[in-house]
């Protein structure tokens, strides 16, 4: 099991969502993808995608406009 880190700070729609999907596609079941970004819409929409994909949302945090989302495949 590995932890994949993804940095999409400064990227706008649809890049953060698409990059998360690409990372989750490459990951193995059980792997954790941790994505860091700044686009406010993506902070709302990445959890929606995680639910639609039937994966597990582990954590969402935000500090000074930078959010971090942890997902388990």
């Amino acid at each position: 099991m590995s932890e994949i880190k993804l940095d999409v700070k400064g990227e706008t729609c649809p890049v953060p969502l698409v990059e998360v999907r690409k990372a989750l596609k490459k990951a193995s079941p059980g792997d954790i993808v941790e994505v860091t970004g700044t686009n406010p819409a993506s902070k709302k929409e990445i959890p929606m995608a995680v639910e639609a994909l039937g994966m597990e949302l582990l954590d969402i945090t935000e500090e000074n406009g930078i959010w971090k989302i942890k997902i388990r495949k």
Partner: protein
Amino acid sequence: MVEKATIIVHSGDMDKIYSAFIIANGALSMGMEASLYFTFWGLQVLLKDGLEKSSQSKMGMDLEMMLKKANVVSLEKLIKDFKELDGKIIACEMTMDVMGIKKEDLREDLIDEYGAVGTYINEARNSQITLFI
């Protein structure tokens, strides 16, 4: 069965091509399948030099500046991501007949399938989202 989005790309205007790929990539990212059915002016964008020609002629400077300023990704990246997430591109055979376009005139590396209206209907009847752009 996996949910699906099927989009007809009829327009060759660059702003609309952008919209089509952004929506399709959104659908793929949200766990759906996505098919883009390129027809008429849309199909011309899939000509070998179509992307460059369209971006020069159909996208005004204002829009180009706006997209750049807002840090929106390039169309090339949108297309690359679309293919990487297994998005399907269908080229309209009727348009090819009407406009005298041959397979070798097109970006065959991007096209998964060639079909006419029946192919679109078959895709669309199993889709939860279908759009005409």
